């Protein structure tokens, strides 16, 4: 019965953090003024801050969090492994490679969406590659191996781009981008990412029953009417839409897709379909909280979201592993 209260709690938490994200920033603005400015038609500086800076940032935090949490839960359900995470199938590293090439070649500087579009192209190429490598009848193991191969290739090519970079400024720009951030994003970024993410969310949320059936293994699931090839195809496309768009907009943000499903699994009775919804909301709450934290901890130093997620996420994950090991004794 516990899972019936999990969803309202997570939804309320996400809503509170979303409001907090709108209200917290370097410019001290009163709550009432902030909300009024958010819906104002006038082009005042206050309205500009709320509508063009804080709103897209809060929206992107929700979108990225939902995408990463949902992708992590779906991948863990498909691979039947709590250590699976969205980066496993090579989409995020390929999207990062696309972005790095855009930064290196100057394409990113030519127009505002040059970088995210290049990252999306990288993600799309990774999908084609992974579908070709995993093959029409490949199982979960083939998918993991294909993902590892693509990740390794993308990482090697990213290193090559950095290695051949003609000046240190380009290298530092690339490195900072790869740390992941939601600052200086606009509604244009929201408009670019949203269609891909919504497509990914819809696809992944329809896989719940198939993922539930996979609790019993691939053979039993197939005997219960699950079309495994179709499931794998939809999973790859759904995760790629979510993670490709998230990486294109925010850079590499790790641990959300790994830790959030892991934390929430006991609260939904380990039911893979219920974990999809819970992880989507939990991911949104976690990214919102982290993005608020980077603004509060070091407001003058542009602490990167991906760095904070890793610093908080790694010890948290170690703690979860310790608890899991203790439970197994």
């Amino acid at each position, binding site marked *: 019965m516990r899972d019936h209260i999990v969803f309202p709690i997570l939804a309320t938490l996400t809503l509170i953090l979303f409001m907090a994200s709108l209200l917290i920033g370097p410019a001290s603005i009163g709550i009432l003024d902030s909300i009024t400015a958010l819906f104002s038609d006038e082009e005042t500086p206050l309205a500009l801050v709320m509508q063009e800076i804080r709103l897209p940032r809060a929206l992107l935090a929700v979108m990225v969090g939902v995408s990463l949490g949902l992708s992590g839960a779906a991948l863990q359900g498909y691979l*039947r492994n709590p250590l699976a995470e969205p980066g496993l199938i090579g989409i995020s590293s390929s999207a990062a490679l696309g972005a790095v090439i855009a930064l290196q070649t100057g394409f990113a500087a030519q127009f505002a969406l040059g970088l995210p579009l290049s990252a999306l192209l990288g993600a799309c190429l990774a999908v084609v590659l992974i579908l070709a490598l995993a093959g029409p009848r490949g199982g979960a193991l083939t998918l993991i191996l294909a993902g590892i191969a693509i990740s390794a290739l993308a990482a090697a090519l990213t290193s090559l781009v950095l290695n051949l970079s003609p000046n240190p400024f380009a290298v530092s720009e690339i490195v900072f981008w790869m740390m992941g951030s939601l600052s200086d994003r606009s509604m244009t970024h929201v408009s670019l990412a949203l269609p891909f993410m919504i497509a990914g969310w819809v696809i992944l949320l329809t896989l719940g029953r198939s993922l539930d059936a996979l609790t*019993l293994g691939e053979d*039993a699931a*197939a*005997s219960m*009417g699950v079309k495994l090839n179709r499931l794998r195809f939809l999973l790859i496309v759904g995760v790629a839409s979510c993670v490709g768009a998230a990486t294109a907009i925010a850079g590499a943000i790790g641990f959300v897709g790994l830790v959030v499903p892991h934390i929430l699994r006991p609260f939904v*009775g380990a039911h893979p379909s219920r974990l999809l919804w819970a992880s989507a909301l939990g991911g949104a709450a976690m990214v919102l909280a982290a993005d608020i934290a980077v603004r509060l901890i070091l407001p003058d130093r542009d602490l990167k979201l991906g760095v904070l997620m890793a610093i908080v996420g790694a010890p948290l994950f170690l703690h979860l592993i310790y608890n899991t090991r203790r439970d197994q004794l």
Partner: protein
Amino acid sequence: MILLSLQNLTVMRGECPVVDHVNLTVDAGAFVGLIGPNGAGKTTLMRGALGLVPTQGDSSLQQMDPAHRARHVGWLPQSREIAWPVDVRTLVSLGRIPHSGRPKATDTAVDQALARMHLTDFADRIATKLSGGEQARVLIARALAQETPLLLADEAIAGLDPANQIMVMQLFSQLATEGRGIIASIHDLGLAARHCSRLLLMHMGRVVADGPPDQVLTPDHMRDVFGISGYYADTDHGPIFQPLEVLT
């Protein structure tokens, strides 16, 4: 009513046939024990019939669309996989996935399956924290909750204690009496002789004997297929078979 029909079903592994031109018909009301030594092709025959491995020849199950097939045949694999720490009731209710909606029908089917496997008191326990034998019973209950006319069970009683082995075999026999068809691969020839209405003896991918237990568990078959001698008797307590010794 015919629940399963195989015609020249063949499964190849490379150049080698692991199931070799098997013809088989199973009617409603039959409890078929699939027996044979390790590697005889019992599991592959059932997986081939279900279309889980590429096959040649015809299987009536493969001609159904997957959703219809899932409501016609339940499959209890040998690998007892439970990926997540779900409670027993949730796990058993996974058997209702092929059936659409109707929560009341689901609750009734799950309750009946739990009761039949004497698991009602285990309903709220975490399945992965149960013993191996208890997990095996939970997975059988999951297959029962699917409420299919035909059930294929691969070594369903392996790892169970004697009382639960007999309980499961009596349950399968009861299901057959109720008009369902059961095909179960079994290594315990004594239990197979006692409970199955028909035995199918496989050797090197082929069906070498098919009939009632007394016609399949003959000294010749035991010698040629298993390399053992055995004792078969019809008693007041029903048929008894006891493997005796390995023949050199």
